[in-house]
C-alpha cells in the first residue's frame, strides 16, 4: 500500500481533497433535496387525509343528526 | 400480393404522388439546405471546406433539412383520418411504417441528389469524393427514415408537433451522425478522398439502420391502437 502512496498524486492532497469532498457533497445534497420533496408530498397527503376524515365524519354526524330530527318531527 | 404489400404499395404511391403534385416538402428542404450553406460560408468565413469542417457543415445541414420533411410526414394522415383507415383495415399495421419510411427515404435521396452537388460546387475542390459519399448518404438516409418515421408518427398526435419531433429525434440520431461524419471526414480531406475506417463506419451505420428499422417495425402496431 505504501508503494502506491509513493507515486505523487496528480494534485496536492488538500486541493484534491476539495474536489473529492465537492463530489460527495453534491451527492448528499441531491439526496437531501429529494427527501425535502418527499416531505412536501407527505405534508400534502396528510392535509388531504385530514380533510377527507373531517368530511367523512361530518357526513356520518349529519346522517345521525338528520335521523334524530326525523324522529322528533314524527313525534309531533 | 398479400393485403399488407398492397397496402404498402398503395400508401407509398399515394404519398409520392401527393408530394409530386403539391411539392410541399422537397423544394422547401432543398432551399433550406442551400441557404444554410450560404450562412455557413459567412459564419465560418470560408469559401472552401475540407475534412472535418466540410463533413460537419454537410451533415448538420442535411440533418436539419431532413427534420423539415420529418415534421410533415404524417400530417395528412392526422388531418384526413388515414390512421383510422389503417386501423380498420385487416392488414399488418406495420405496413404504414414501411410505406412512410420508404417515402421519407425517397425524399431524402432526392434532396441529396440536388443538394450535395451544390455543396461540392460551393465548397469542394473536386467531385472525386461524391461516389463513395453516396454509400454513406444512402445508409444514413435509411437510419433517418427509420427513426424519423417512428418519432414523427408519435409527435403528430401531440400539441407542440413541430417542436417535439426534432426535440426527440436529434439525440436519437447522434450515433448515426457520429458514424456518418466519421466516414465523410476522410472522404473530404484536402488531399483527396481517404478511406480511414470507412468500412467500420459503414458497418456502424448499417447496424443502426437494422436496429431501428426492426424496432420501428415491431412497435408500430402498438402506436396505432386506439
Amino acid at each position, binding site marked *: 500500500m505504501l508503494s*502506491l*502512496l509513493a*507515486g*505523487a*498524486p*496528480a*494534485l496536492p*492532497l488538500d486541493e*484534491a*481533497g476539495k*474536489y*473529492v469532498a*465537492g*463530489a*460527495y457533497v*453534491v*451527492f448528499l445534497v*441531491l*439526496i437531501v433535496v*429529494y427527501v425535502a420533496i*418527499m416531505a412536501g*408530498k*407527505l405534508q400534502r*397527503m396528510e392535509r*388531504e*387525509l385530514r*380533510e*377527507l376524515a373531517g*368530511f367523512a365524519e361530518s357526513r356520518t354526524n349529519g346522517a345521525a343528526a338528520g335521523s334524530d330530527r326525523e324522529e322528533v318531527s314524527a313525534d309531533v | 400480393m398479400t393485403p399488407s404489400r398492397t397496402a404498402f404499395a398503395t400508401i407509398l404511391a399515394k404519398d409520392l404522388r401527393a408530394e409530386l403534385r403539391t411539392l410541399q416538402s422537397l423544394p422547401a428542404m432543398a432551399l433550406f439546405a442551400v441557404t444554410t450553406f450560404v450562412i455557413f460560408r459567412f459564419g465560418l468565413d470560408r469559401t472552401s471546406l475540407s475534412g472535418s469542417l466540410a463533413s460537419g457543415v454537410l451533415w448538420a445541414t442535411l440533418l436539419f433539412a431532413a427534420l423539415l420533411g420529418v415534421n410533415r410526414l404524417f400530417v395528412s394522415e392526422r388531418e384526413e383520418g388515414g390512421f383510422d383507415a389503417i386501423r380498420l383495415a385487416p392488414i399488418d399495421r406495420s405496413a404504414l411504417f414501411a410505406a412512410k419510411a420508404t417515402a421519407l427515404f425517397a425524399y431524402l435521396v432526392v434532396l441529396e441528389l440536388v443538394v450535395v452537388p451544390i455543396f461540392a460546387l460551393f465548397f469542394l475542390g473536386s467531385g472525386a469524393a461524391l461516389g463513395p459519399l453516396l454509400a454513406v448518404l444512402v445508409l444514413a438516409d435509411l437510419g433517418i427514415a427509420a*427513426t424519423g418515421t*417512428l418519432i414523427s408518427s*408519435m*409527435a403528430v*398526435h*401531440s400539441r*407542440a408537433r413541430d*417542436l*417535439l419531433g426534432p*426535440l*426527440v429525434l436529434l*439525440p*436519437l440520431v*447522434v*450515433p*448515426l451522425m*457520429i*458514424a456518418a461524419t*466519421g466516414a465523410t471526414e476522410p472522404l473530404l480531406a484536402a488531399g483527396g478522398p481517404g478511406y480511414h*475506417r470507412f468500412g*467500420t463506419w459503414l458497418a*456502424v451505420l448499417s*447496424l*443502426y439502420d437494422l*436496429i*431501428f428499422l426492426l*424496432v420501428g417495425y415491431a*412497435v408500430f402496431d*402498438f*402506436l396505432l*391502437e386506439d
Partner: protein
Amino acid sequence: MYGKGLRPLSIATVVAIAAALSLVFFYAPLDADQGFIQKIFYLHVPLAITALIGFVVGGVFAIFHLRSGDRRWDAWSYVCIHMSVIFGVAVLITGSIWAKASWGHWWVWDEPTLVSFLIVFLMYATYYPFRYAIEDPERQARYASVFAVTAGAFVPLNFMAVRMAQSLVHPRTFGTANGGLPGSMMLTFLVCLAAVALLWLTLIKLELTAKSTSGQLKRLRRALDAPPRGAGSSRIAPEVS
C-alpha cells in the same frame, strides 16, 4: 402494497452506504497516478452504472406495458426512468468535478464514457416534454413506452459510436481505473456499486409508495363523494392506484 419492505430496504441501504464510505476513505489504497482524486470514481462510476441499468429496466417495463396494456407497468417504467435521470444529473456533475480535478477543465470531450452518458442523458431528458405534449393519458402511456424501448435500444449503439469516434491518441482513463484494479479497490468499488444500487431501489420504492398513497386518497375521495381537489394531478407522472 408498495410500502411493504420499504423499511428493511432503507436500513440495508444505510448500512451499505456507511460501509461503502468507510471503505472508500479508510481502506482503499491511494491510486498511483490520480492520487486522492481517484476517490471520486467510487461515487461517479456506480452512479453511472446504476443509472444506465435503470434506463434499460425502464425499457423492459415499457415492453411489459405494451404487451399487457396494464398501466401499472407504465408507472414503473416512468419511475425507473425518472430516478435514472436524477442519478444521471449526479453522474454528470461528479464527472465534471472529476474532469476539473484531473484535467483542469469543467468539461472534456476526451472521455468517451462521460460524453456517451451526456448524450444518453439528453435523450432521456426529452422524455418529460414528450409525455407532457401528449394529452390523452392512455395514448401518453403507450407512446412513452415506445419511447422507452427506442431509447433503450439507443443506449448501447450510442456508447459504441462515441467510443469509436475517439481519436486513438488519448488513452481511455477509465481503462486504467477499472481494468487492473487491485483487490482492495475492486472490493471497495463493488460495495459502492451495491450501495448506490440499493439507494436507487429504495428511492424507487419510496416514489411508488408515494404515488400509490396519492392514488388511494383519490379513490377515497371519490368513494366519499367529496368534492374534487382544485389542483389537478400532474399531467405526465402516471398514477398508481
